[in-house]
């Protein structure tokens, strides 16, 4: 079997979430300073549908450019899929006993294939979107692209999280060959590539790199342009649900 991070992960995660909470609280504090109701009236009944549309369809960007929309959707869907998987695994790992039916299904039964395919699919989507977004910024001549000091480091951060995730999957396959991994195609490629490096220490190093980057991302989110992940669809939904 391979190393699991234990208590240190929970301490780090708590700090990260607290920083995120503080950041979000500071943004909400600013929003709450606004006392002018503005010219538009929000129709609450229309908000849920508008929110779903803005989150999952992102019509504003789609109308402007199919290429940029595709890149953005690849990043969003890939990220969301991996987030759902990670959250799900966290829940069944920490809140269910090891011999429960659900844990058995996903760790020893047919559910393993589902997790493998899910992880590969969404990971690949995220990776493709990030590479395309980086390429557009590094090699494109679109005047919209900002000479921002934030954009490329942020994309690189996400790329590193994504790549280290695939590396972990490969290293896990190497360290635990008994675990079925027939459906983790990218994981198998990663396992094959990393075979010479496979070892408990290297795995531990990459795992902590992945954790550190992911937790940094969570803590950094409200203090950066990444905040638009939450605010842009919310605002667009407000605007959509306020149209006469």
């Amino acid at each position, binding site marked *: 079997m391979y190393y699991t991070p234990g208590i240190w992960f929970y301490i780090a995660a708590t700090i990260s979430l607290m920083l995120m909470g*503080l*950041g979000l*609280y*500071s*943004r909400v*504090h*600013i*929003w*709450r*300073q*606004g*006392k*002018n*109701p*503005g*010219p*538009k009236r929000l129709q609450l009944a229309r908000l849920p549908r508008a929110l779903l549309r803005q989150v999952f369809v*992102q019509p*504003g*960007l789609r109308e*402007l450019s199919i290429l*940029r929309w595709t890149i953005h959707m690849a990043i969003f869907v890939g990220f969301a899929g991996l987030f759902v998987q990670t959250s799900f695994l966290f829940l069944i790992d920490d809140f269910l006993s090891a011999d429960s039916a659900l844990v058995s299904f996903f760790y020893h039964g047919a559910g393993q294939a589902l997790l493998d395919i899910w992880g590969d699919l969404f990971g690949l989507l995220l990776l493709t979107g990030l590479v395309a977004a980086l390429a557009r910024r590094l090699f494109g001549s*679109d*005047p*919209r*692209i*900002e*000479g*921002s000091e934030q*954009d490329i480091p942020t994309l690189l951060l996400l790329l590193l999280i994504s790549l280290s995730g695939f590396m972990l999957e490969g290293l896990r396959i190497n360290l635990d060959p008994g675990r079925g991994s027939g459906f983790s195609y990218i994981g198998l490629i990663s396992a094959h590539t990393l075979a010479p490096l496979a070892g408990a220490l290297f795995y531990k190093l990459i795992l902590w790199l992945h954790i550190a980057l992911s937790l940094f991302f969570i803590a950094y989110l409200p203090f950066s*342009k990444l*905040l*638009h992940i939450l*605010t*842009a669809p*919310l*605002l*667009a939904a*407000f*605007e*959509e649900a306020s149209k006469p």
Partner: protein
Amino acid sequence: MTEQKKKSLDISRLGSRGLMALDACMHCGECKVWCPVVAEDPREQLTPRSKAKALTRIIDDQYGILGDQGPVAGLLGPKVKDKLRAILRYSPPSASEIETFKESLFECSTCGQCAVVCPAGIDTVELWETSRRAMVDAGLGPLDNHQHLVTSILKDDNPWQQPRSGRSKWARKAKRAKEIQAAPTEIKSPGQVPVLYFVGCTASYDANIREVAVNTVNILNAAGVEFGILGNKERCCASIMRRIGMSMFEEYAIQNIEAFNELGIQTLVTSCAGCFKTISSDYPRLGKLNFEVLHITQLITRLIDQGKLVPKIPQDIEVTYHDPCHLGRATRVYDAPRQVLESLPGVRLIEMERTGEYARCCGAGGGLKAGFADVQHKLSNTRVTDAEATGATDFVTACPFCYQSLKEGIVRQESRLRMREITELVVQSIKS
């Protein structure tokens, strides 16, 4: 920290949605490629995204985690804050950054093109106007070039530095020149007429634009509309006050609303897109209007539909139509002017490449013309070039202020285009 920096910005006017909008901006740059000002003055600081970023920085300095009015202001002592600032290498916005933001905020016609293309749906016009108000309230605006407009409105109720007593001179002159059959009725008592024609300052005072008022009167007379004007009692709608962030706008608006409501009218019609936007969209936020507000093109289409106005004299011209920002993007009146043009015999409409909600601004509005005349000239020149590309003979608009600016652009560009105001074409089609 300079004296300017110390001034506190009251962000309450931006509203929660406006403040959230600053955090929703993803700096995608779509606004940059569409902004008509950036097209002529391509400095990044003028892009809506840069303005959003600069404003966020100013607000964060005051209301953010380490700000004096921040969420943990009471918990962290000044020494702790200074330590944290040093650790985070935080530098507050400098006086020059604030000055740059101020100039960028005002070097904008508030045309609303950025709002149309923003994928996050940010209502940038509301954001810029409320930000201007916050800046002005903090003593950081308006621009020196705007002061004469404010002084003139306060002194004479018009931005053109003309005496109040001369407001209805256009009607007397038109009567003498037999351009109109009779001077329009000046409303003296409530319920006297069902329709008020709100002439607006530009058509009232600019000798080259007064035709708009004359044509409107002739159209209303031809259709048998019972209407009146306020004559010298008409006051500026104060649109420019709102655009440049002056608090006096509210006083003007409230007084005008009371005056209009007391007239007992059913309809207020105006031939100025700026007055129309202000009265129909900005006034209702300050008081209830007991009447409908129409732009002259909306009333003309209604009169044509009712058979009260019959355009029949052919003109044989090809026209292209410029959507005024205040009539188009601001109030979404795109169809009425086109319906009017299509109803005129012998008038063929050719659309420009950028039209409707993507119409390029002529730069006349939002205080840009007064603040940055050279930039505004470039904007109207470019719009004239857009019109020339259609091959049309006549360039039509439905706003006296756009008309004035585009006409100047035609002269500067030595264009063969004839500048026309939509009411002029209607009169040409109905006069006997």
